[in-house]
């Protein structure tokens, strides 16, 4: 009775989130099996057509592009971010706090602004081309915008703080005496890093990977602004189908596919970081 009375307070919370997340997801799921008429109106008629289109070569390509982008984003942020996290964790307290501040600050800066910054830097009339022209390295602007790699730069730039924070937390938790023990037993710096530090920070890497990979699947504004629609990604496709194509059932099917990928990544994460169950968002 006592526990029942206590638990009942939690019910509104569960209902609230359940209503706003659970039911919409059910809606999307149902919608992904429905058809539409020639005007784009949804008709209640069961079909697998939407899912057939997901594996249609044209759309499959979009799907693979997105997976590739998300994967590369995660790898790039890992390679760039790991040293940043590692170096920061080993700084003296004052510098360390400063460095952490600089890493966290972009969370507070508009993501549109940060994407826009690259437009200004990379455009044909952009800063980088101007500087290179001025010092005579090139004699005509090098096109750098609207490529797959431009989108990659954008998503990696947008998400690298997540990777760093996740790795930093796990490097920070590392028991320093383990590293000292390793040196003491004759291991070099390099050996210590690969034998001790890296394996022990795997949960952080896995966490960072998850936190980067999932949003990278759907940052449509980055690929829109920097990729210019030359490579189509899942996010753009869904977005266009909803806002312009008016094919919501198809968008729903793609959303479901996207959610499934996200869930796969998360389950992979929870396998790798068993002990860190709550770690992902803390």
């Amino acid at each position, binding site marked *: 009775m006592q526990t029942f009375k206590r638990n009942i307070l939690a019910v509104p919370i569960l209902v609230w989130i359940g209503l706003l997340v659970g039911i919409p997801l059910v809606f999307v799921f149902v919608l992904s099996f429905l058809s539409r008429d020639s005007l784009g109106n949804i008709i209640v008629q069961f079909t697998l057509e939407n899912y057939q289109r997901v594996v249609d070569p044209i759309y499959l390509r979009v799907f693979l592009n997105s997976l590739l982008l998300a994967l590369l984003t995660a790898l790039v942020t890992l390679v760039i971010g790991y040293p940043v996290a590692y170096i920061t964790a080993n700084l003296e307290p004052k510098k360390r706090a400063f460095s952490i501040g600089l890493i966290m600050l972009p969370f507070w800066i*508009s993501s549109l602004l940060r994407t826009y910054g690259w437009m200004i830097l990379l455009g044909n009339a952009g800063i980088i081309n101007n500087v290179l022209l001025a010092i005579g390295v090139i004699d005509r602007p090098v096109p750098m915008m609207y490529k797959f790699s431009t989108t990659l730069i954008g998503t990696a730039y947008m998400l690298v703080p997540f990777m760093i924070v996740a790795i930093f937390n796990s490097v920070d938790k590392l028991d320093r005496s383990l590293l000292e023990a390793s040196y003491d037993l004759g291991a070099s710096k390099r050996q210590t890093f690969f034998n001790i530090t890296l394996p022990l920070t795997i949960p952080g890497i896995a966490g960072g990977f998850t936190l980067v990979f999932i949003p990278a699947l*759907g940052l449509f504004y980055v690929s829109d602004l920097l990729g210019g629609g030359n490579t189509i990604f899942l996010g753009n496709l869904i977005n266009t189908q909803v806002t312009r194509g008016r094919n919501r059932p198809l968008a729903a099917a793609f959303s479901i596919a996207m959610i499934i990928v996200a869930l796969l990544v998360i389950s992979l994460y929870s396998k790798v970081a068993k002990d860190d169950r*709550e770690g992902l*968002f803390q």
Partner: protein
Amino acid sequence: MRLKARKFDTFYLSLFFVALYLPVLSVILYSFNASPSTAQWTGFTFDWYRMLFRDRVIVEAFKVSMEVALITSVLSAILGTASAVISMWVTDRMKSAIQGMMILPLLIPEVALGIALLIFFNALRLPFGHLTLVLSHSLFCVPYVYIMVQLRLKEIDRSILESARDLGATTWQTVRTVILPLVIPSIITASLLALAMSLDDVIISTYMSGPKTTTLPVHIFSMMRVGVTPKVNALCTLILVGMFIVVGLSQLFNKKQHKEDL
């Protein structure tokens, strides 16, 4: 050898931070460029800022964004804190249920969540506008408040709560006189973060905006699609300044909290 390694560390870190802030600084710098193109610097000007305030659409979108963000952050503060505090008393199973539910919106790709909400609200025939924006934003803001408040609650020694009970406080008095004062800095920091996230959201807002209620980011996005214009630079710079004021405030509360910790 050691010194060389440390020099490399500093070099790498500096390089990273330059890359991290160069795009941001470029935006700010060119908001003062007299020429509408980034191709050349033709002099310093405030013209672009002046133009902003005359743009009715931008001012209107800014108002919508601010209203939505303020309501969202207050709502998130209340719901997130309530969830975290209630979690202290429920059974362990209920607690993990709450935790799972809280993390759920953060695990789903934003586009998918946006579509799901669009379809749902459509089916409910809810008018798209402030209401849908606040509901959807609170979905990703409440979890952050919940997580941050919960982290703080975990730091509170259980015996402090027992001691309040022991001295005669009822559960509600304990919440009011001990728990809330101890977590209020976290609540404020978290709701400021919620404010920032709501103000910054593009993806979900794209689907939640109504015909006459467009948020600022959605509007800026459509401006950016057209291309680079210093007006966008000026607008982004202003938002940046506003956000930094918010960060400054949240840091202030963080400092206060650390001072009080035993």
